[in-house]
């Protein structure tokens, strides 16, 4: 009975890991990608149920305190699985229409999600590393999915080389931390007294590894190429689930392994947050390809989130979790609408200029895109606004006034490039006169649910914010 209870604490990990193998075998024996799709949807829902159950339950550690469950970790699992579930819903139609519907996508997505779940629930540096590696290796393969397209191969190779390099940094950081503190378990690293040069070198290398995974400037170079080269629904998965997982793991490492030296690393995060916000937003201004634009916008979002991390208070961490939730909803949604437009083959709908007049042709898709983009700008009453507001408010409470001013100014820049998409959608005339397809029920349902959630958590955020705040009130 005891071991069953232990297994329940990692139920999402077990379910998704099993699902990956099951879907792989399903593909090997039937070769039918549709079955793989439905099976992975089912397992994803089951894992989401398990994660929600863990999030509502108590916090603690299990498996010889290798795994941390409940609270932030299990909410991270919910974030990852939400991103996975919705991008899976969109994947089937998109991949079928673009002629890339192979069943390996689903097993690779599930293996990547398995790594992310391991990453968010890690209470031990080796588990953390295992999670990052199994996530990354699956993502490298996913980036190169369209292997007959040059851009996709380029994306996969760049991602692989830079990712392998950054993993080296991360591992070296872990090794140095072990050398200076004598432990790999997160709470024991915090208890160690010796904070010498080796400790700081380890922390620096660990931060480098994390900055790469969350694509903070100047470790962002791979992001636009990879997001552009991968199939759009896979990009949605990468941009949301892997980023949420990396940020949640970052929060857990900061708050559980390095809390007593926060004065020092706070300044590092401060500087990186400024660069990430400013450079991400400035580079997004000049993009003509919508996937590259969204990639730079996701870099900018990473910057806002890092403002929250730099604040290092419980309120800031819970605000970051809220932001990640809003970010997942609106980013999967925006990439989903782009993927819908891309299903039309005779025109390249990754170029923003080709969006002229589409808003009136398919009114519902236009409205959905507007909702997601307005939410990304941070305009009320959408979830993105509440996320940004809470992160900045928490940073002001901690006295980071100048950082917040830079953040708000950078966010003001972002209005231009988000709204320019809407200008094309609604204020330009369509000259091609092409007929738009009807999206399938599941596809439009997923997008509408995302939009409704974006609005709901913007109008009525109290329930979730109180709940997230409770993670940091008791044990803090």
């Amino acid at each position, binding site marked *: 009975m005891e071991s069953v209870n232990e297994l329940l604490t990692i139920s999402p990990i077990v379910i998704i890991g099993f699902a990956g*193998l099951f879907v*792989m*075998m399903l*593909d*090997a*024996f039937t070769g039918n990608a549709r079955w793989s799709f439905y099976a992975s949807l089912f397992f994803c829902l089951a894992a989401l149920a398990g994660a929600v159950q863990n999030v509502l339950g108590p916090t603690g550690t299990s498996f010889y305190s290798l795994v941390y469950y409940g609270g932030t970790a299990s909410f991270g699992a919910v974030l990852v699985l939400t991103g996975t579930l919705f991008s899976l819903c969109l994947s089937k139609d998109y991949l079928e229409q673009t002629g890339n519907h192979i069943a390996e996508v689903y097993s690779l997505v599930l293996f990547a999600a398995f790594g992310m779940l391991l990453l968010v629930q890690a209470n031990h540096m080796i588990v953390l590393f295992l999670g990052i590696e199994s996530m990354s290796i699956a993502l490298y393969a996913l980036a190169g999915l369209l292997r007959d397209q040059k851009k996709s191969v380029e994306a996969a190779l760049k991602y692989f080389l830079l990712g392998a390099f950054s993993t080296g940094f991360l591992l070296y950081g872990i090794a140095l931390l072990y050398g200076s503190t004598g432990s790999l378990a997160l709470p024991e690293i915090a208890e160690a007294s010796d904070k010498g040069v080796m400790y700081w070198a380890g922390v620096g290398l660990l931060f480098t590894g994390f900055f790469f995974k969350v694509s903070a400037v100047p470790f962002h170079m791979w992001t636009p190429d990879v997001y552009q080269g991968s199939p759009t629904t896979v990009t949605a998965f990468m941009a949301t689930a892997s980023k949420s997982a990396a940020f949640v793991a970052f929060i857990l490492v900061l708050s559980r392994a390095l809390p007593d030296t926060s004065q020092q690393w706070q300044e590092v995060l401060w500087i990186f947050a400024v660069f990430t916000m400013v450079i991400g937003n400035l580079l997004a201004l000049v993009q003509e390809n919508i996937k590259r634009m969204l990639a730079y916008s996701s870099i900018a979002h990473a910057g806002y989130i890092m403002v929250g991390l730099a604040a290092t208070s419980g309120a800031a961490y819970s605000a970051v979790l809220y932001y990640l939730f809003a970010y997942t909803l609106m980013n999967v949604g925006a990439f989903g609408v782009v993927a819908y437009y891309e299903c039309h083959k005779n025109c390249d709908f990754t170029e923003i200029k080709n969006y002229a007049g589409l808003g009136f042709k398919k009114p519902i898709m236009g409205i959905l895109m507007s909702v997601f983009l307005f939410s990304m700008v941070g305009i009320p009453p959408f979830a993105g606004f509440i996320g940004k507001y809470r992160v900045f408010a928490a940073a002001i409470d901690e006295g980071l006034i100048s950082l917040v001013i830079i953040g708000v100014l950078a966010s003001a820049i972002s209005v231009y490039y988000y709204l320019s998409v809407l200008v094309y959608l609604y204020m330009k005339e369509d000259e091609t006169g092409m007929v738009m397809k009807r999206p399938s029920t599941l596809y439009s349902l997923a997008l509408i649910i995302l939009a409704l959630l974006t609005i709901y958590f913007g109008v009525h955020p109290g329930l979730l914010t109180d709940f997230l705040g409770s993670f940091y009130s008791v044990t803090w």
Partner: protein
Amino acid sequence: MLEQYIPIFILIALAVLIAVAFIILSYLLGPARPNKPKLGPYESGMDPIGQAKERYSVGFYIIAMEFIVFDLEVVFIYPWAVRYQEFGPGTLWAMVLFITILLLGLVYTLKKGSFKWDMLPGSPAK
């Protein structure tokens, strides 16, 4: 702390010194009478027929991947089997799970036709 590494540094320095000294000495003292076959890649072998940057059949890489399955099994099973008495029977199930997962990977590549070597060059695996 670093003092204990001094012998290693001395060893490294000596090794580099001796290697460099031998290269310089053989350059200075050794007779050099080059001719064409002597300078070829294989002095007493065949003449090279082209660059090494050829494209190899992807089948070789798949075989390499399959090798990794067995390789990993050996790497983990061997130390485990040696210490099995101390580890106890619970670890048997962990090992069964591990081997099953690796086996599924092998089954997958088999089903995808990794051992079908009779296919024409360039044709996709069926």
